[in-house]
């Protein structure tokens, strides 16, 4: 297994960040947002997009200050080896949990749509094999997976055209009826879907033209925001309120009203196709967490991959109930919110203080 790290072009950052944001979250986001901020969910999403865009800008400034390290190295650099490793370990656990949440929620979706009776661990194992195979090819392959899966799945967006014929504009009216606090709750809840931009902190060293990175990551973040916005708005216009509150995966239910002359039930095609959408997520989370293991324990990345995969596989026997899953995703969304929406602000402060101390000590 060669870990052939090579540089990738800056525009690849667009695909990496975008594909790691879009995943299982977008299938359920209209409902989650609607439950919180009702008809004004789109405001929450726009706010959340703005927030993410700011954080992205912040992250890139942190990275630029630290001269092209990953977050793992930054932690060691700032907090020292021991405390830094503890921080890194928490991040690794977070990514493992994210990976698991994506896997298990896809498996659940897939079992609901046509594969009832298959054990969960079979699906988990299959997805694990895919991601192990991809990640063992190194960063170049992971990027390639992001890029190709984007190309292979972006056409699914055009499927929205058919539901668009059936929407009713009055459902979103009147606007601005929800209270600001509800809208902010919506922003908070959208975190599970919007997360993924934190990948930036770990791919930075591999990007060729670092000054263009800002542009492409902003495009990626906004593209994701627009996608989420479109799906949410269309879902709100398409479903009646009660129906939207009931559907676990409103987007899939929406796709289920699409039909073509040659395919009767399009959702049965779209659900397997969703593997291609989550595939980059799985690869990136596995890649980052194995990279973290390598950084902490000084072992080969290969062993990290296997170790994490075994942990994930064992987990697949533990959480299998719908209710548990919901709780789990919720928690991940929360932790992710604090970790990647709030924490970078502190990190930015710390790096600035650190660099000021450094320059001062250099002067004296």
């Amino acid at each position, binding site marked *: 297994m060669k870990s052939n790290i090579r540089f990738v072009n800056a525009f690849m950052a667009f695909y990496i960040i975008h594909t790691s944001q879009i995943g299982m979250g977008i299938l359920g986001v209209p409902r989650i947002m609607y439950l919180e901020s009702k008809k004004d969910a789109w405001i929450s999403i726009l706010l959340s997009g703005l927030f993410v865009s700011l954080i992205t800008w912040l992250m890139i400034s942190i990275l630029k200050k630290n001269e092209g390290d990953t977050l793992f190295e930054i932690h060691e650099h700032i907090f020292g080896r021991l405390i830094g490793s503890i921080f890194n370990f928490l991040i690794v656990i977070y990514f493992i949990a994210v990976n698991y949440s994506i896997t298990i929620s896809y498996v659940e979706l897939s079992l609901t749509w046509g*594969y009832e009776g298959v054990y969960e661990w079979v699906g988990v194992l299959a997805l694990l094999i895919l991601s192990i195979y991809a990640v063992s090819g190194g960063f170049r392959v992971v990027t390639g997976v992001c890029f190709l899966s984007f190309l292979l799945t972006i056409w699914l967006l055009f499927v929205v055209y058919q539901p668009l014929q059936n929407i009713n504009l009055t459902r979103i009216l009147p606007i601005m009826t929800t209270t600001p606090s509800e809208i902010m709750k919506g922003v908070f809840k959208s975190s599970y879907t919007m997360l993924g931009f934190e990948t930036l902190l770990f791919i930075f060293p591999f990007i060729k033209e670092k000054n263009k990175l800002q542009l492409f990551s902003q495009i990626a973040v906004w593209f994701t925001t627009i996608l989420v916005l479109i799906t949410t708005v269309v879902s709100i216009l398409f479903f*009646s309120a009660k129906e939207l509150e009931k559907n676990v995966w409103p987007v899939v239910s929406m796709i289920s009203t699409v039909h073509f002359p040659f395919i009767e*039930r399009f959702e049965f095609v779209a659900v397997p196709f969703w593997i291609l959408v989550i595939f980059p997520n799985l690869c990136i989370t596995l890649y980052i967490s194995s990279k973290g293991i390598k950084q902490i324990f000084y072992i080969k990345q290969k062993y990290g991959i296997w170790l994490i995969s075994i942990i994930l596989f064992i987990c697949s026997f533990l959480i299998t109930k719908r209710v548990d899953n919901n709780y789990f995703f919720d928690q991940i969304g929360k932790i992710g919110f604090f970790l990647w929406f709030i924490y970078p602000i502190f990190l930015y402060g710390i790096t600035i203080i650190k660099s000021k101390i450094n320059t001062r000590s250099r002067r004296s």
Partner: protein
Amino acid sequence: MKKIVILLCSLLCTACMAPEKIIEMQGISTIIGFDLLDDNTYKGTISLLQFDRKEEKTSVTLSADGTTSKQIRQKLEEQTSHDITSGQLRTILFNKNMAETGISSFLDTMQRDSLISSLIFLAITDNAEETINNTNYEEYPEMGSYIYQLLDKHEKKEMLVNSNLHDFITTQYEIGIDPTLPIIKNANGVAPSIDSVALFKEDKIVGSISLINTLYIKLFTNNKAFLGDITVEIAAEELEKRGMAELNLPKSDIYKITLHPIKYKGNIEIKNEELVHLNATISVSTLEFQPSISVKNKDSLNKMEQLIGEALNKEFGYILEELKNLNTDPIGIGRKIRSVRKYSHLTEGDLRQKYSALKIKPNIKVEIKRTGSVD
């Protein structure tokens, strides 16, 4: 590394096959009908496509009694050698009695079952079992396909307001609008056909209007509906009163005009809490005058348009009155009211109360765009 992956793959492949649903093992249900028997038991009738080695016969009709749809399903399952699946289910029929007691609990299981499409058609009939067992249909393999074709034609042209599961449930759950469903007429010796449209209120059927009259509803609910040709009758004295005598009208008491709508635009205008305007403009081409007249100058054309508009408004007024009496709102006036900021707090109960007291003013304008190849 690679070997391990391959090994794992092959292990997975052999060990964990997904449960199979091979096509010829399936009894593919295309239509299911529910009849309410007395004391809360239902009779389910199902038409199955099943592919046996004998080629002539591809369909079977089965019936069973039960208290829930899944129980019926189980009993049906006992009667056939194939697995009954609903992946290709296209239509659900309910008999009128059932519709009177409420069908949403049935629809809930349908929606929960991911195998059942959201685009499945719903329809009301007098007796679902008889309808499915009717053997008079055109060149279709079985009744399910025939009724599907029938409803699909109407759906494609948007001749019905709502007819499929998704539409019905969405409208049902929405505050301020009531769903409708097509009623299928079944008579001996002829193929089933769509007769009229059932009106619902809180999940229960309360009345019906004819398919032609649904055009007034579709003006405001659908964007691209096929309105159907409109025939208007105008009394002769009306014409004279308007000073259209110069048209050299042939002698007749009543004039019938058939119009073909080309384009239309409907808009519900909320004037205030008590008054709602239903504005609509229909562009039409004239198809038929009986007895034949020709409208040439602009002035008389305008008058003619006005006359037709008035006739339509009158008709619409009657229908609205009836809808108000039934307290059902298929047009979605309540929904529109609720979308105004002032009234967005209204609940379903409030709306119902308001609705019966609401003044609704129909305001349909007709524009004769084309007159065919002659004037």
